[in-house]
């Protein structure tokens, strides 16, 4: 019966994430979800661009942004996207342990990113008094970057949950789509960060 096939397949197919109808549905549905998320972030970007000079005599982006830290954060997140590609590569080779290892590295890099972001926000608040409420620019900045940070946090919780839950059993056709949709999500928040890096930080420095 297909029931047992999905948990203990005789042969692991090349793309285990799309081998079952449930997997295919998840794959497709998740792409659509990311389409909606694109509009979500587009709305935040639009709001940010409209308000980025509305500093109300408070600190401007040019005064407070430190590109060194942001560059390190960018590298952490981009690398974590790469390591999740390795993890999916091992998933397709049905090498569970290596997949878990690379996803573990992904999670560590993500935690590094998140830690840096928390440090960054704390720095702005304590050093410059630049908060969610201090100006329209502050509201727009924390909304956009914070929404992204929230996505990273949720993604980390999701990934760690998946890894712990499946640690004692092998890869199968039921959990492969779950890992795969996570990797799609992770790439998506990576892409969003590239835009944040450009629009918020680089344009904030030169604009």
């Amino acid at each position: 019966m297909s029931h047992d096939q999905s948990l203990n397949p005789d042969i692991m197919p090349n793309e285990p994430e799309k081998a079952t109808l449930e997997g295919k549905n998840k794959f497709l549905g998740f792409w659509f979800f990311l389409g909606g998320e694109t509009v979500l972030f587009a709305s935040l970007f639009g709001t940010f661009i409209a308000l980025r000079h509305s500093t109300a005599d408070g600190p401007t982006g040019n005064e407070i942004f430190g590109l060194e830290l942001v560059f390190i954060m960018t590298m952490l997140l981009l690398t974590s996207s790469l390591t999740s590609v390795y993890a999916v590569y091992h998933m397709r080779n049905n090498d569970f342990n290596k997949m878990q290892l690379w996803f573990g590295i992904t999670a560590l890099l993500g935690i590094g990113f998140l830690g840096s972001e928390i440090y960054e926000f704390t720095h702005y608040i304590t050093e410059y008094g630049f908060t969610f409420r201090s100006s329209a620019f502050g509201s727009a900045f924390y909304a956009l970057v914070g929404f992204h940070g929230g996505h990273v946090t949720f993604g980390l919780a999701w990934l760690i949950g998946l890894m712990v839950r499946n640690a004692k059993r092998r890869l199968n056709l039921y959990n492969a789509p779950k890992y795969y949709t996570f990797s799609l999500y992770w790439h998506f928040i990576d892409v969003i960060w590239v835009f944040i890096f450009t629009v918020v930080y680089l344009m904030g420095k030169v604009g």
Partner: protein
Amino acid sequence: MSMAASQKRSFGAFLWDYLTTVDHKKIAHLYLFGGGFFFLLGGLEAMIIRIQLIKPENDLVSAGFYNELFTMHGTTMIFLAAMPLLLGLMNAVVPLQIGARDVAFPFLNSLGFWLFLFGGIMLNMSWLFGGAPDAGWTSYVPISTTSPGHGVDFYVMGLQIAGAGTLIGGINFLATIINMRAPGMTFMRMPLFSWTTFITSVLILFAFPALTIGLFLLMFDRMFGTAFFDVSLGGNAIIWQHLFWIFGHPEVYILILPVFGIFSDVFSTFSKKRLFGYTAMVFATILIAFLGFMVWAHHMFTVGLGPVANSLFAIATMAIAVPTGIKIFNWLATMWGGSISINSTMLWALGFIPTFTIGGMTGVMVASVVADYQYHDTYFVVAHFHYVIVGGTVFGIMAGLHHWWPKMFGRILNEAMGKLTFWTFFIGFHLTFFIQHFLGLMGMPRRYWVFLENQGLDLGNQISTVGAFFMAFGVIVFLINIVHTAVKGEKAEADPWDGRSLEWTIASPPPHYNFKQTPLVRGLDPLWIEKTEGKGKMTPAEPLGDIHMPNSSFLPFMISLGLFIAGFGFIYQVDHNWAYSLLFGGMAITLVCMMIRSLKDDHGHHIPKEDLEGEAK
């Protein structure tokens, strides 16, 4: 209603079944009764509005209460009545039309419904907790940011929760229609209702996130002291209008496109003809959806975006009349030379064409920028959008309900009462709203709780109110019809209307697995092809085998309940610290339930082949 089956079990079991169901047909019932309840509530609000305006300087309600009434009337009708009723019909019909046993994400389907219901209850809780939102359904800032009390907070939280449910529903239908079609059911063989559901889901997917962000910004400004719309800190009030209408304009196509599909199926069934210009209909739908995203600023002509922006948006808006016109002519051509039978379903469809065309014509009028400075915020606009939303969406929902009621509940709605409902509602509708065009042209503004005597507005408003009572009468007859049909309505056979598409090939109501064997589709109108060129029934595409079905779950209810509780926490943390316990408690319920869903395996179950053989054919 499948009362015969349910009465054997206790009421508790019946309730538990509906609380945990992931079956798209039962979720359709839930949407129908949930949406129907809010429709009555919104209708009640409309009646009070009309009674207040029956004579000059009436003092039935205060100005403040009037603001709450029209805000809640608009918000309820659009988010909690029209959309859920449409989602109910989609759930009931689309999986059957494409030959699927269920939707792609049954669990999410159920979650979508419960989020909508709890969001709707949240919004209406405002009546009990110190006053409803009063900033209009558009909730423009700074009216909404400065509105005292918690009314607008309930608007924000209620719509946020309900909107998440709608988004989930949209994604579900997209994946279902792409992945779950029966063998041979190519895209260009899908019935028009399935097509418009598909395109509507695309609109939902790309429009709702803009509202989500708009609501978040409003929430942050109202509850957490941010400055998005606070001009003194550099904020900008126009951002709300843009975000709201980037969502809001596609929203009106979300309301109208599904009923275009319903009418297409109805016209072709009751004219006994293939839909005229099927391909043109599909592409007109896609074109309307595409253009629907590019016209949002026509709601903002008087804001001062400048002549270039206004002209571009005006031209794009007028362009939508072209694909819509294609549709109107195709419906007429479908009936041309057909063998037409006129029953209550068809009456709604026939009433729709002139009504909606008037709404479309006034639409082109308000799209013209210069003239719009005159129409803006008058009863002319009120008349226009009621002609398209009531004359389009409500007529379409009524046509769809009469058409598919036998498939949903196994009984045929009473024909005499159906006709009475149509004629009173139709006449009442035109009495109420036609005169409002002229009231608007004479300068009567929207959203005012009184008007002065002897301004030429007295008689018009009186007529309008009388019309509203006709509509209310029609709705009451329809309610009686529902009860009458449930108790002693005529039992429906599988194919009561001599139908053309797959939903009419299976029993009314269908078994919970829909198709014992997936049908093989040989063309557009598959059942009609088999009737005219085949054996009169579908050829199965697979041998009889075990059927895999999803398991019921109580988690969607709990996830939505958690957000509902957290919503109160968000609203009241502004002035009470105890509200944080609601906030964190509610979020904890939601997140824990999501985690259970994610980590606990749920493989569904199989209906063995032997059981299927045992059941009646």
